[in-house]
């Protein structure tokens, strides 16, 4: 039954994609959303079945048959539904369904309505294959599938050059990570002779020595893939550009699918990572640095979606930080809460953009609360959750990650996390205040057309706001909540995991909370009370401001260091190698044959005596050879 979970959206995608153009729009939406609903219900039913099983044997398996069978090595179309897959599938289907519903309203005026829904369904299907696969190769199929879908959806409005190139960028940057994964998988076959989760993860402690170089490199290869998909340093650059796609796509990529794939991969491979402490440290540090780095960029951006994009990168950094310090459950917990509040933030932002007829620049917004009440409230909930304010979802998961970082002895990472919390509060509420509060900076024309979104867009907002507010409680009390217990059997007991005093934990939580609230207060004073203060501040530290505003010039650096040399090399190859050598060889061979032919055609006289003569000469030579060769 669980194999139906990804197959239904796949079928929906096929139906809508192939004959959607001849259907009424309503039917397209019903099929697409229906497929997502079916998957959600099936996931929920499987989840319930899982809960009924005894704790030790909580997993369901299904196989659609053999895929590759070559000697001892075999791969099947097998699906696995264990607690980790269950959480992922529920999040993917749940948030995915809400985004589907939202898209009904958001995309009404687009003429490529069926294509959009076909791709959304395909995206969902690929992501479900990814999280439900029971071996690395099938996981990789989903992995590449979401990569493909992200390309297609980011470049959905391919008439716009920016969208087309953003899609290409996402695809190419992901290729780097995917290449590392392919190498890792091949190596894994050599080491384990299998790609099945069960055998690889069970055999890992016997095949790989703790702390061995092999284990480190293998896990780092997987991690490189994860940085590509989950937009970590240094491969994060595609994610902000992915804003060129329609807003529901941004929500889907950022919240439910795609970026969580990397987190899932590492959480799934936890037994492997457990053998490579070096890799874990690298994961934690990359995560922490990414969190801080992205938050600092988000402080000065002006595009409403772009800020949320950087906040996604920052929150993903938290997740990797959690995974890296061995708190796998905490990482997955944050993934789950993040899925809710990030989808909420994106959909709210989409609602704002929808209302303002495509305007995305915060400097031309302000005071929108009056006009967009539902959107403003849900956005506020999302912002609070993102900033980690108690009792919203983000608080619990982030608090747990930071506690784990501290408890495992990575106190510098804890400090970075706290600093990031300050930045998070600041940029989230800068965004909120500049968009919804204060004086309106809209022009009169736009103000006249402003309207709250239709029900199909408001409903997901409300549901997600409820989720963002409450979903954190599945992880309460910290460290031993329902979720952690549920996930516990999947993850190995971390070597780092040290029991932590409740009092210390409380202090830590309060510290992080204080930092976040501090950020909000600063945002309030700077952007609401005295709007001119940021400008004077920027004027006082122009270098810092420009560096942040230009995102540390990383895009420019990559362009100069990687993109241009590659393009130049390709051009040189095409002009010199291809045009001269390859074409030259081909044309030369043709010219040679042509010339030989024009020489040889003189032999064909049509005169029988000439032919006879050549036959006789041939016979003389042949006979001579036979008679005198021995």
């Amino acid at each position, binding site marked *: 039954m669980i194999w139906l979970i990804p197959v239904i959206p796949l079928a929906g995608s096929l139906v809508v994609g192939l004959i959607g153009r001849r259907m009424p729009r309503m039917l397209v939406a019903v099929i697409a959303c229906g497929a997502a609903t079916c998957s959600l219900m099936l996931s929920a039913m499987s989840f319930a079945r899982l809960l009924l099983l005894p704790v030790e044997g909580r997993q369901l398996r299904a196989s659609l048959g053999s895929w590759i069978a070559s000697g001892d090595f075999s791969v099947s179309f097998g699906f696995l539904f264990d607690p980790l897959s269950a959480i992922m599938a529920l999040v993917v289907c749940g948030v995915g369904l809400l985004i589907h519903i939202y898209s009904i309203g958001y995309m009404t005026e687009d003429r490529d309505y069926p294509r959009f829904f076909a791709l959304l369904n395909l995206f969902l299907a690929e992501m479900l294959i990814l999280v439900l696969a029971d071996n690395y190769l099938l996981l990789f199929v989903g992995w590449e599938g979401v990569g493909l879908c992200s390309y297609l959806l980011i470049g959905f409005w391919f008439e716009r050059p920016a969208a087309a190139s953003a899609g290409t960028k996402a695809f190419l940057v992901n290729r780097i990570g995917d290449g590392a994964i392919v190498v890792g998988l091949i190596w894994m076959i050599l080491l384990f002779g299998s790609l099945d989760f069960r055998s690889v993860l069970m055999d890992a402690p016997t095949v790989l020595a703790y702390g061995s170089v092999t284990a480190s490199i293998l896990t780092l290869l997987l991690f490189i893939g994860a940085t590509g998909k989950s937009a970590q340093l240094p491969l994060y650059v595609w994610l902000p550009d992915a804003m060129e796609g329609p807003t529901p796509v941004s929500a889907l990529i950022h919240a439910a699918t795609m970026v969580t794939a990397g987190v899932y991969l590492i959480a799934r491979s936890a037994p492997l990572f457990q053998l490579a402490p070096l890799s874990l440290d690298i994961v934690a540090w990359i995560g922490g640095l990414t969190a801080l780095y992205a938050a600092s960029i988000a402080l000065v951006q002006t595009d409403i979606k772009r800020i949320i994009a950087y906040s996604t990168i920052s929150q993903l950094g938290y997740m990797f930080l959690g995974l890296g310090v061995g708190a796998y459950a905490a990482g997955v917990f944050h993934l789950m809460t993040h899925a809710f509040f990030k989808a909420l933030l994106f959909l709210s932002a989409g609602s704002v953009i929808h209302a303002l007829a495509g305007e995305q620049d915060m400097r031309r917004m302000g005071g929108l609360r009056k006009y967009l009440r539902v959107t403003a409230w849900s956005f506020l909930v999302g912002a609070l959750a993102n900033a980690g304010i108690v009792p919203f979802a983000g608080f619990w998961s982030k608090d747990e990650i930071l506690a784990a970082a501290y408890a495992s002895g990575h106190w510098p990472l804890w400090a970075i996390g706290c600093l990031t919390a300050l930045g998070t509060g600041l940029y989230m509420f800068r965004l909120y205040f500049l968009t919804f509060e204060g004086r309106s900076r809209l022009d009169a024309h736009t103000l006249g057309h402003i309207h709250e979104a239709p029900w199909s867009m408001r409903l997901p907002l409300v549901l997600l706001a409820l989720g963002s507010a409450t979903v954190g409680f599945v992880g309460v009390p910290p460290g031993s909540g329902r979720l952690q217990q549920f996930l516990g059997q999947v993850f190995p007991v971390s070597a780092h995991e040290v029991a932590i005093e409740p009092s210390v934990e409380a202090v830590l939580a309060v510290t992080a909370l204080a930092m976040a609230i501090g950020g909000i207060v600063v945002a309030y004073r700077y952007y609401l009370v005295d709007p001119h203060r940021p400008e004077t501040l920027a004027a006082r530290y122009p270098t810092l401001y420009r560096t942040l505003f230009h995102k540390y010039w990383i895009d420019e650096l990559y362009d100069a260091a990687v993109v241009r040399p590659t393009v130049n090399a390709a051009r040189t190859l095409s002009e010199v190698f291809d045009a001269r050598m390859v074409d030259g060889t081909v044309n030369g061979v043709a010219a040679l044959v042509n010339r030989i032919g024009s020489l040889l055609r003189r032999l064909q006289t049509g005169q029988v005596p000439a032919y006879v*003569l050549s036959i006789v*000469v041939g*016979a*003389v030579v042949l*006979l*001579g050879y036979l*008679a*005198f060769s021995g």
Partner: protein
Amino acid sequence: MEWLMFVPLAAMALITATLVIVLRNPVYCALSLVGTFFALSGIYLLLQAQFIAVIQVIVYAGAIMVLFLFVVMLLDLGHERPLWLQRDRPRLLIGVGAVVLLLLELVIPVGSWTARVPQGSSTSELMGGVGNTQLVGRLLFTEFLVPFEITSVILLIAIIGAMVLARR
């Protein structure tokens, strides 16, 4: 005794064959060829192949050469230019060279050819007892039956082909 028969017959065959290719009038060429066929027929007798000798005279000298003569006279071709006045000198030289080489290549191995031990059972005594014609006939209708039947089909096709081609 055999030499007395062989030498004149061989000489006649070679002379008439040479005449075939040097005489300018096609009618004379054809008549020379008939002479060659007769000489070969005599040599076949010498080789104890009486049936072949008879067939040689009947089929070749009789049927085929008559056909040749018919066509020669039907077409009224006239004389060729003398060989030594033909235009294509290089080709002629290459041809003569090739022919001489060919002759050498065919003859020289004969000298060094080591005679194999006779293997067959068709000894002179058998021939004398049973008769050549009977031996040929028996083989033809037992061991070589299928090729024999195929030959009949070839002849049939040749008849039809000749009619189709020569029809006006």
